[in-house]
């Protein structure tokens, strides 16, 4: 009896919380909820609401109100539509290239390489994450410039790069986001028990058949997880296009150049990548991949 009394006296907060489960829950979630609602959602909402506001044609001042003019421009201006499609194309290309690189690399690292080589490769993949984003962009700009490394190295065999353009943007974005695909894919392949490979080969399947029938189905959730990163990060990027794209415009370029000139158009445009990602997630959910993540 006396011990319980003692306990109450020394831990008043704990004993209060243990009786009041609601207070406990609020205490647990207060900070994250404040963050998500107060900062995350509110700021996004305040930006998106501007999409419906007016711009005074005389002074370019923005006035609150309700008009669908910005969305009208979005869907009727050929340049805007072309830019949206180009951005979607770039994001899809980046994702596909990342998958094509990540799967064989992951199989090798997880199942073939010695632990020393595996560790070396893991460091090599994550190494770019240590450098700043802008540093990597400038590096890509330097090596792909007209008198840069690649044109110099490939000149003897008569190959000349395309100059700053869409292919270089795709390469740059692949370079930037590859670790986000490679790591989950590698982890997923590592978790496949080795006896599945043995069983597959006992049943007569060769290497590619094993990859197709055993490995791929098991790592689809990891690929989806990685592609959410590569796809959505590519959709939102604009500095890669600005530094390595030459005249290439992406959705981000239009948002960036309109954020001061015409905020409603910028806000309306920021809904485009959001809707692309939502559609992507809905499709991924339909295929059942999200449940297995």
């Amino acid at each position, binding site marked *: 009896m006396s011990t319980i009394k003692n306990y109450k006296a020394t831990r008043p907060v704990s004993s209060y919380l243990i009786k009041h489960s609601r207070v406990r829950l609020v205490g647990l979630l207060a900070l994250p909820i404040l963050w998500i609602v107060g900062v995350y959602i509110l700021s996004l909402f305040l930006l998106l609401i501007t999409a419906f506001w007016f*711009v*005074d*044609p*005389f*002074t*370019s*001042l923005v006035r609150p109100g309700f008009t669908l003019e910005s969305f009208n*421009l979005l869907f009727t*201006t*050929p*340049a*805007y539509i*072309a*830019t949206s499609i180009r951005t979607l194309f770039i994001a899809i290309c980046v994702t596909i290239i990342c998958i094509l690189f990540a799967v064989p690399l992951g199989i090798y690292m997880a199942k073939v390489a010695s632990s020393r080589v595996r560790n070396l490769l893991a460091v090599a993949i994550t190494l770019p994450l240590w450098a700043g984003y802008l540093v990597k962009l400038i590096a890509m*700009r*330097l090596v792909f*410039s*007209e*008198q*840069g490394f690649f044109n110099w190295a490939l000149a003897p065999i008569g190959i000349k790069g395309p*100059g*700053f353009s869409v292919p270089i943007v795709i390469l740059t974005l692949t370079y930037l986001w590859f670790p986000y695909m490679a790591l989950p894919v590698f982890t997923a392949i590592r978790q496949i028990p080795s006896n599945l490979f043995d069983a597959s080969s006992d049943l007569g399947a060769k290497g590619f058949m094993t990859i197709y029938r055993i490995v791929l189905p098991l790592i689809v959730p990891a690929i989806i997880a990685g592609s959410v990163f590569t796809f959505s990060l590519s959709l939102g990027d604009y500095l890669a296009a*600005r*530094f390595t794209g*030459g*005249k290439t*415009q992406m959705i981000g*370029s*239009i948002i960036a*150049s*309109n954020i*001061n*000139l*015409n905020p409603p*158009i910028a806000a309306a445009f920021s809904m485009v990548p959001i809707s692309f990602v939502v559609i992507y997630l809905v499709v991924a959910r339909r295929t059942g991949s999200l449940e297995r993540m």
Partner: protein
Amino acid sequence: MKAKKLGRFSLLAVSLLIVSGCSSDSSSVSIEVPDIPMHQELGAFEGELNIVNWSGFVEPAWTDKFTADTGCKVKPRVAGTSDEMVTLMRTGQYDIVSASGDAALRLIVGGDVQPLNLDLIPNFSDDIAPGMKGNIYDTVNNKPYGVPIGRGANLLQYNDDVTKGAPPSWDVVWELDTPYKGKITAYDAPIYIADAAVYLMYHNPELGIKNPYALDQKQLDAAISLLKQQNQIIGEYWSDVFAQIGSFTGGNTVVGTSWEILRKFAAKDNIKTTLPIEGSTGWFDSWLVSSKTKNVNCAYAWMDYTSKADVNGAIAMNFGMAPANIAFCKTSAKAQAHCDEYFAEDEEFFKRIWPWTTPIETCVDGRKDVKCTSFQEWTNAWATVKG
């Protein structure tokens, strides 16, 4: 060949005729602006001054003395583009801005800045370059709104190793048969539409463009279709100055719009600039005082201080532009060399330059029978150019 050269020569002669009288005369145009009272007499200094400025305009080298003299503590905020300057000034948190003409007129018609009492700025004197006084971008209905700081031209920069001499015309950046396809750069902002208009003014006189900032719908459409043509041959649009310099030195760009200071930064003998026969656009910067300022006396003291020959010259040398106060040129051999390099005293040179001016619905060329396209329309049109 000879005939061609002669032809070019006569073109040059004609162009000189056309572009003389280029500086827009503000007295003939009446523009509707909010009625904001002018400051009547100087009072006590408020103790602080919040400035929106281009990088390099406000440095301790000259603000320290200003603060010591007046007690006004200088708080600068650097802006990267004219549009950012306008946005910042509209917050009402800043007292004064170093606006280029494309921002200035927008701020004036928006009622964001106040008319100035030049009697309170004794250093605004005969030493200010005549070409920087009374221009439409900062003088509206004969009321001055701006005190000039400095100016620079948008020149044609070229890689001499490739072009073998200065291109005589801007056609190398506009026409589909250019030898430099894919190696052309252009300034990435809606105000660049005016550069297309300058080219059209010279080559398509039937469009009737009299001022590249006063375009009716038909003229704007013509400029936009020229820009769309350029989009097929362009390599890059630049807004980041270091990316532009890198493009020229790295060989990705051979010809394109540039500033004298960027050529200096490129620091290569084969990178040169020229002013082609069509003339060009340029940026003329002035101090504008917010209509909501609480530090108006400090603002007037600042404008007077920075209009002094030595301070104005220090700003111009630091940024890399022609100073507004040309008395600076005579202060030393170094100053004279700077003035010569940036054509500071060469009014004939600047007569061929159209100062950036915000396009507004009132035609700034004085036409009354048509409505001109506003900056908002330029912005929307510009977005369609780059696709």
